[in-house]
């Protein structure tokens, strides 16, 4: 989230879409209700189902799963056509005035400029700003044919051409206007199934916060995996970000783009780079062309790109300090300047190694071993059957878990005969791990708060702490390399592991290492403040690129300082009343609770709304001050016009995302899901995402309407269950004892299905069997003029659990149905909006 849970109470308007917080985040949803009660805030809910969130909304619209960009693009168009914009914000805090290069083309035929159908990739050189100065009132240069244009270097120009009148035909605002002019209410209706009059009602309500030039009100966009789990997931969120930038809602209390996130520490897992393409603190993984650290840093450290008269902090320019401090934390004394800070210890990647690719290459026999801790890959999917087939080809599997799970028992999945089991050569180790109550350490919630938790009891039986198991395996591998030698043992032998008890690393020691410390005496020349060798660093501003600091994750620097564990603080005071709680736990970065909060003020540095003062410029002190920690260069006066979006090299928010920022294009475009019941009404010849990642094994089949897969299916969670975990808890199993398929009353009538009757849902990949749950929460829809049915399947049942073990389910995990196809930016599979057929079982 750019903002936080409690901050939702400050909003005037909510768009909740792709998420169902009333059921999936019940104790956080109270803050949305608080906003309705205390501020008379309005709530718009857009969802394929009339959820319990929808039940509290002022306006509910039923949308076809996978049509989100069409709806949001329609809102962008409505806001522009009706002048419901935050003009000063748009002009000064976004790249609306920037000029885009000649030769850049919008996807009127479904493709941006530069597409190569043979490789299914884009040459993105035209997706860039034009170099130059103030172009106000100047005629657009004549477009030269792209073929004769010199090949452009793939970097942003330092001095961007701009037109503050926003009239130049190639300025971002005019291109945005043109791009979304196609998203008329009629087109929105054809694609989404939302009737035009309902769409217009929602568009009017959402943008009403900017009616008649009002700049005080603020709207929040709230979403979850209903947005991410699509082949265009990243671009759905991008559309929301564009909308929020146009309306001036980012950086403000009660505003922002807020990912609810579904698990206790996946925010932390992302921050800590539990993903193939990152290193801790969102540093990029090195590539083979990074032949040394200098080459890596040159590639990943952005350079400023902005209009001449403006200023840009471009905080990522400090990347070398973050990277060298990370290498010092990972490799300690072995990371020396002479040895390029042990940069060559890190693997260099030149392709994608994401979740679905991992399972795909295990299926192909390339991945021979898997260590899995608390991650039930067979159930998580997509395509449970493919993942089971992949594990059968692996040589070994190590599972660390709390309960008997489907992944560790893949070799005896339902339907596997004894004879077949004898053919499976995989060795499986199942290690009993510790539950949350048995471990200390920290979780990071979706509001970016790091919170320390304490261990209440030891693990049961012979179960061990996860960190102990990992340490013991790693140290045993190290011993083997010491004794026997082997391939490139240096990083294994030299990884810093000097914890007080290396076999049982104390998590408080690890947190301190993540925070970082001084490796030499440091002094801030400006303030005279000194930090002695060995002391904890107070914040990331102290990090150096000369090896005198170590920090395992620069964004967490400040979490455990010389003043103690900031992440364990329990101060319940909230002096501003804005729900900031500055002394409760610790929020990255630098305890800032709302990101980009400089944008909560006008150009002069005064809050847009004096009743919701977050930060402001104090002229007498010559500093930014406030109730929150300013997310800005504290001494940059408003007259310098430094942009509030300090992590972008432009300093401003990106309505147009240049160059390689996104795979499909600088503006989002509606593409149909991989399995769609209709051809894309915008451009039938380019129906799907042109750069989507599909897979090609025998298991990877995609269904079509022609094959009889005519029903749109989406998956969801229930309030009473948590993923594949509470199926082991008697109380949760008692409240919702068995799986079901939610179908509309209309569909039940069409198909002659009675509520409670067992039905069979089949996709191109597998079959799911459960009772029909006939409701009026889903309705048949008209998509591009044709009547279509949508169904919903809760994900919580597999083949190990209380109900499963008692033989009360059909042992068919929901992800038997889902396709292996992924968003090319975030690599998230399309769990939402795929095609099935429905029959009586």
């Amino acid at each position, binding site marked *: 989230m750019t903002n936080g849970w409690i901050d939702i109470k400050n909003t005037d308007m909510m768009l909740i879409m792709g998420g169902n917080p009333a059921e999936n985040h019940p104790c956080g949803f*109270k803050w949305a209700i608080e906003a309705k009660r205390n501020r008379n805030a309005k709530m718009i809910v857009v969802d394929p189902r009339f959820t319990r969130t929808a039940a509290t909304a002022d306006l509910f619209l039923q949308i076809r799963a996978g049509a989100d960009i069409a709806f949001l693009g329609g809102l962008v168009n409505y806001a522009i056509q009706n002048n419901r914009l935050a003009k000063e914000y748009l002009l000064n805090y976004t790249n609306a005035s920037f000029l885009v290069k000649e030769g850049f083309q919008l996807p009127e035929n479904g493709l941006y400029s530069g597409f190569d159908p043979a490789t299914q990739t884009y040459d993105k050189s035209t997706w860039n700003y034009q170099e130059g100065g103030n172009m106000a009132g100047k005629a657009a240069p004549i477009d030269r044919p792209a073929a004769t244009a010199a090949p452009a270097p793939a970097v942003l120009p330092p001095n961007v051409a701009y037109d503050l009148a926003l009239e130049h035909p190639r300025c971002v605002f005019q291109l945005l206007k043109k791009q979304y002019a196609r998203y008329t209410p009629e087109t929105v209706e054809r694609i989404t199934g939302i009737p035009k009059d309902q769409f217009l009602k929602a568009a009017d309500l959402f943008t009403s916060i900017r009616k008649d030039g009002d700049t005080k009100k603020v709207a929040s966009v709230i979403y979850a995996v209903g947005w991410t789990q699509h082949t265009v997931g990243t671009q759905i969120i991008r559309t929301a970000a564009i909308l929020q930038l146009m309306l001036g809602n980012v950086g403000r209390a009660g505003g922002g783009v807020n990912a609810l996130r579904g698990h206790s520490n996946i925010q932390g897992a992302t921050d800590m780079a539990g993903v193939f393409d990152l290193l801790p603190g969102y540093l990029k993984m090195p590539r083979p062309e990074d032949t040394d650290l200098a080459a890596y840093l040159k590639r990943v450290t952005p350079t400023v790109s902005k209009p001449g008269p403006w200023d840009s902090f471009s905080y990522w320019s400090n990347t070398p300090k973050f990277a060298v401090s990370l290498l010092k934390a990972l490799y300690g004394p072995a990371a020396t300047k002479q040895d390029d800070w042990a940069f060559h210890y890190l693997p260099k990647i030149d392709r994608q190694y994401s979740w679905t690719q991992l399972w795909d290459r295990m299926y192909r026999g390339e991945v021979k071993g898997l*260590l899995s801790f608390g991650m039930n890959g067979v159930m998580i999917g997509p395509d449970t059957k493919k993942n089971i087939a992949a594990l059968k080809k692996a040589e070994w599997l190590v599972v660390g878990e709390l309960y008997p799970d489907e992944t560790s028992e893949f070799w005896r999945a339902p339907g596997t005969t004894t004879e077949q*089991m004898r053919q499976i050569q995989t060795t499986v180790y199942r290690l*009993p791990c510790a539950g949350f109550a048995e471990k200390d350490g920290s979780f990071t*919630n979706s509001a970016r708060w790091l919170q320390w938790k304490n261990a209440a*009891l030891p693990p049961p039986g012979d179960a061990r702490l996860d960190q102990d198991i990992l340490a013991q395996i790693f140290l045993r591998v190290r011993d083997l390399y010491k004794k026997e030698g082997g391939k490139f043992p240096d990083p294994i032998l030299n990884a810093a592991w000097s914890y007080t008890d290396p076999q049982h690393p104390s998590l408080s020691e690890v*947190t301190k290492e993540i925070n970082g410390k001084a490796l030499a005496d440091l002094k801030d020349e400006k303030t005279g403040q000194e930090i002695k060798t060995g002391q904890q660093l107070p914040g990331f501003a102290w990090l150096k690129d000369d090896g005198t600091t170590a920090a395992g994750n620069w964004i967490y620097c400040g979490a455990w300082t010389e003043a103690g564990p900031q992440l364990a603080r329990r101060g319940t005071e909230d002096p501003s009343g804005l729900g900031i709680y500055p002394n409760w736990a610790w929020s990255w970065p630098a305890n800032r609770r709302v990101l980009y909060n400089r944008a909560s003020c006008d150009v002069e540095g005064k809050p847009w709304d004096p009743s919701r003062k977050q930060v402001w410029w104090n002229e007498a002190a010559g500093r930014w001050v406030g109730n929150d920690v300013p997310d800005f260069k504290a001494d940059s006066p408003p007259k310098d016009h430094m942009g509030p979006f300090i992590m972008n090299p432009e300093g401003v928010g990106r309505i147009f995302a240049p160059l390689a920022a996104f795979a499909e294009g600088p503006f989002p475009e509606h593409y149909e899901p991989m399995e769609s019941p209709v051809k894309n009404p915008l451009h039938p010849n380019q129906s799907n995402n042109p750069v989507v990642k599909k897979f090609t094994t025998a298991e990877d089949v995609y269904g079509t309407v022609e094959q009889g897969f005519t029903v749109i299916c989406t998956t969801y969670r229930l309030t009473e269950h948590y*993923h594949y975990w509470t199926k082991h808890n008697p109380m949760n199993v008692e409240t919702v004892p068995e799986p079901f398929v939610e179908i509309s009353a209309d569909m039940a009538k069409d198909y002659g299905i009675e509520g409670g009757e067992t039905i069979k849902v089949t996709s191109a990949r597998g079959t799911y069997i459960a009772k029909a749950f006939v409701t009026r929460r889903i309705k048949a829809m008209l998509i591009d003029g044709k009547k279509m049915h949508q169904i919903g399947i809760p994900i919580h049942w597999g083949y190990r659990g209380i109900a499963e073990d008692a033989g009360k389910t059909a042992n068919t995990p929901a992800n038997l149905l889902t396709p292996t196809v992924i968003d090319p930016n975030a690599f998230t599979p399309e769990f939402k909006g795929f095609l099935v057929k429905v029959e009586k079982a």
Partner: protein
Amino acid sequence: MDTTRRDFLKVAAAGGAAATVFGFDLAPAYAQLRELKIARATETRSTCPYCSVSCGVIIYTLGDRAKNVTPQVIHVEGDPDHPINRGTLCPKGASLEQDILNPRRLTKPQVRRPGKTEWEDISWDNAIGEIAQRVKKTRDETFVEKDASGRTVNRCEGMAFTGGCTDTNEFNYLVVKAMRSLGVCYLENQARV
């Protein structure tokens, strides 16, 4: 004066002072409180492991944390001091005691050998020893030091690590340190899906 429920009880616990603050004697109310089963329990502050709201929870255990005393969980409830959940828990959080004290929990290491149809018990020492040997063997067999162009890549592509949603930040950091040092590229997490 803002008084939370917990502050109120703390004041109440101070006895005589409460009489002056509230103008009446709270001693009978306090005596009643002490009869609650959690009154003599140890309170441990934790965070709900389910969704990302991060509801504060209090785990009540019997046992004074003295050496050789195993704490027994007797109750789990929402932490009323927590600014987000303010003591509330959802149907999942409300059943956390059953997650902690669950007879279905795995309590011993096991191995399923190739071609076998049942689990076998294995000692921790043997399990870790065998896993370490497999990790080394797979790494040595699949490690790539240079790519086709002769550039250093130091990759181990034959092995993968997947982490879960309830792994702590500190565990995740140790995973990065250990796995990237082995050269692992297939490093993924619930955060992806």
